[in-house]
């Protein structure tokens, strides 16, 4: 996953629900040094909360989007995030 263009990530999940699993794995995809370049916020939801998992991402160009990850797989999230990251990367490369 391309994490270079992310500025803020906030993850909320319910650890006692299977639906929270994807959000937890998403956290594990952020590398050991990413906290120096972006803000990461994690919230552990209540045990009987309805929401399984939620991921909010904000990019360097100001675009942000929210995902309810209860029914998504980790590959789905990576695809969503990378789609925008790639366009930023292309602009970055062209500008030199």
């Amino acid at each position, binding site marked *: 996953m391309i994490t270079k263009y992310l500025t803020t990530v906030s993850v909320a999940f319910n*650890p006692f629900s299977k639906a929270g699993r994807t959000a*937890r794995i998403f956290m*594990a995809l*952020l590398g050991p040094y990413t*906290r120096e370049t972006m803000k990461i916020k994690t919230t*552990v939801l209540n045990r009987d909360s309805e929401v399984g998992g939620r991921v909010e991402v904000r990019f360097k160009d100001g675009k942000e989007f929210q995902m309810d990850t209860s029914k998504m797989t980790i590959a789905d999230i990576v695809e969503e995030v990378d789609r925008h990251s790639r366009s930023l990367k292309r602009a970055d490369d062209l500008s030199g």
Partner: protein
Amino acid sequence: MAIRPLSFFRLSRTYTSLTSPSTSIATDAIPPPPTLPGLSPTQPRTVKSPYTRKTQLFRIYLSLLRSTPLMVFFQHNNLRAVEWIAIRRELLFGLRKIDPTSTLPELTRITVLKPAIFATSFRALEGYDWQHKRSSEPGGSKIIAKETETLKETHPLSPVLTGPIAALSFPSVEPTHLKAALDILFPLKNPRKGLDPLAVSGLQKFVMLAGWVDGHVYGGRNGEGRVMDVDLIRVLALLPDVNTLHGELLAMLRGAGGADLIMNLSNAGVGLTRTVDTYRKMLGGELDSDGKPVEANAGGEEEKKG
């Protein structure tokens, strides 16, 4: 000379200290699993071959679970090695400050888990009550797997045991130690002042998920463990220690009508004893059916005869 290093590698991969090097180099055949006579209660029997890493991990986890009354599970997100070292050191030193003479700090450990194998050994502990059934015959692991299959869906801890998780295990349930450990590892606001900066950067990558109290502490036997969420763990950490609670209970019993309670409870016993004693005397012939002494009547009859 070409064979020796090969066989040496083979030996180093088998994770065993049970065979002597000379025999292993001489023969390629793997000896049968040890029977382990007179093993301690925390030492799991070997059902599968002990020469694979999976089996060893399973046995380590099962042994850890059986000897640990309190565990806190947390997620670790890509910590560097130096951060792990710093955190373990801070935890040890922080716990030592409470009571320098106690052995608790050394036995309070952070173990990084392989979630799938840990979940299997956890199911074996919770679902397959080893106190009553012990299975070391071939195929025993299949029996355990079949009996604990339903726990995959029903046990509240099974969704927690996925992804990169680690466990903080305590050798006994001591709220003061738990509180100290939580303050260091999972601070509510800012990390404690004076921590190693490496430890601080590592702590940001920890997320506390759940806790588990062993069945022996909670329900008196395995399989009755209690799963706690984050709030409940923090509540447990705020409790006073066991001696204080005992004292409070005694004081409460003594103060709030404890004497009356004991009198009422003993009244029933005294009444029952008297009734049973009367019946015993009746049957023995000491008393008649009205409960009066027999001696007087007997004496009267003798007088009539005389």
